[in-house]
């Protein structure tokens, strides 16, 4: 041998940190970015399927959020019973009815809505202003608004009041037997269908991404073999592939997040008042949070798919 190889001394703590950061940047991030760009063609199917999955996840998530708000609203509405009063009902008849209702232990509170207030409320609801304008008189009755403690007691309160002389015999109350349960069933069905659809798409996206990482592993087999044989730690060997997966997922999440945000903003802007009824609670802030979540899920999904592939194809 011409000379002896002597191990050098390690630098100071601050410089050591700089050295570690520089080496990590070069071998983990820079290497991953270079290979990811080189294999972009092979990554395209994974990118496409993941973008589609995340976009649909974002939109389904927004729909789910709106449906949850709707369910809360429906639960509240279902326990609020409107008792419609005859137009010619005398004040003492109304007072007597109100007193009878308030005396019932199943009732939380009772409010009173005049005909004018009913008309004003109707005018704020989508589609009803045209109906109101079509007639000269006020078609909306005054009502006692009964907040029942338990949804299950609404039917009993309805039976208690519907034959009262102060109550409109043609359309006595707002009670609709089974309406709340029907809404709950529809929502449950929609949630199950949405979850199954997303699971299927998720499986496809994870499989396609894992395959693209497998291709990347095979393309860099020599480099990986050398790293393993010289004793590079496992995270050093696997890290670049995980980052490649995160890049794919992150880009897919970014694209899907932007599209989700744009669609939500467009719907909010176009729908204005009626949209708030169709998708209650969906605001600009909610849309931004949803877009950020889609982006974060993309990174997690890409990294996770990559790890899944590494476990199968890169054991030492």
């Amino acid at each position, binding site marked *: *041998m011409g000379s002896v190889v002597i191990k050098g001394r390690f630098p100071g703590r601050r410089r050591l940190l700089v*050295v570690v950061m520089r080496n990590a940047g070069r071998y983990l991030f820079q290497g991953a970015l270079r290979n990811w760009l080189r294999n972009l063609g092979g990554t395209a199917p994974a990118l496409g399927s993941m973008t589609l999955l995340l976009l649909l996840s974002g939109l389904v998530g927004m729909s789910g959020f709106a449906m949850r708000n709707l369910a809360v609203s429906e639960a509240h509405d279902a326990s609020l019973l409107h008792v419609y009063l005859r137009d010619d009902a005398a004040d003492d008849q109304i007072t007597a009815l109100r007193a009878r209702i308030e005396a019932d232990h199943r009732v939380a509170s009772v409010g009173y809505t005049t005909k004018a207030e009913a008309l004003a409320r109707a005018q704020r609801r989508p589609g009803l202003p045209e109906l109101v304008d079509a007639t000269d008189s006020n078609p909306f009755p005054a009502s006692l608004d009964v907040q029942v403690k338990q949804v299950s007691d609404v039917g009993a309160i309805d039976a208690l009041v519907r034959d009262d002389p102060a109550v409109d015999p043609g359309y006595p109350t707002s009670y609709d037997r089974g309406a709340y349960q029907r809404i709950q069933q529809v929502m449950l069905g929609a949630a199950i269908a949405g979850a199954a659809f997303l699971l299927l798409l998720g499986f496809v996206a994870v499989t396609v991404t894992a395959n693209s990482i497998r291709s990347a592993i095979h393309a860099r087999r020599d480099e990986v073999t050398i790293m393993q044989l010289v004793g590079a730690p496992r995270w050093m060997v696997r890290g670049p592939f995980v980052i490649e997966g995160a890049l794919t997922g992150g880009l897919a999440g970014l694209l899907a997040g932007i599209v989700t945000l744009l669609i939500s903003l467009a719907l909010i802007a176009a729908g204005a008042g009626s949209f708030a009824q169709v998708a209650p609670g969906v605001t600009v802030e909610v849309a931004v949070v949803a877009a950020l979540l889609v982006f974060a899920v993309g990174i997690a999904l890409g990294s996770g798919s990559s790890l899944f592939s590494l476990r199968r194809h890169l054991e030492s």
Partner: protein
Amino acid sequence: MGVTRSYGSRVAVEDIHLGLDPGELVFLVGPSGAGKTTLLKLINREIRPTCGEVWVDGMPAHELSAAKVAELRRRVGVVFQDYKLLPRLTALENVAFALQVTDLRISDEEARDRGLDALEAVGLGDRGDAFPHQLSGGQQQRVAVARAVVSQPPLLIADEPTGNLDVETAWQITDLLEDIANFGTTVLVATHNVEIVKRMQRRVLTLVDGRLVRDQPAGRVGRLAWAAWS
């Protein structure tokens, strides 16, 4: 109980008892399929033994978890017949790469200095900037040796390191391996090159059908046992 490794019903190495001393240069010979590469893979923990124990520099290679394998491999330099250099890196970068991916604390300057030292040690101090395709087979193998010893492992294993080289270059590589052993590193060389094994007069292990049939001490000249089967 010695070390045994089976692949299904086929036994690759069977009941091997073996110990190597520091600074020893040992040749591992035998016909193709005798189990030489399997034995090297067992030492480097590329595979686990079916039964038996493999200890490398105090580490139990036979029971190491996957997370600990890297630690063992930093104690074992490896040289292959086909060099396994990264074509997009220069000779110096290939050596420095091996240093830095095993220890991120090594700066570029230190990696360069130690890489150049290693290349000088193998006689390639002036070819650090050359890419593998610009080097001859012998020079590429020297770079591979430099990469294997740059972190000063206590053990160097070489699988047919002269298999792709002409006679003169094969002798140069063998001399290099001998120099490395003289500096205290244990060197285990699997080879088919009978001429080199005979003339070096070092310890010779002979494997036939997965069994260690002969362990000839250094300084003894004898007929190579496996020649009868080859």
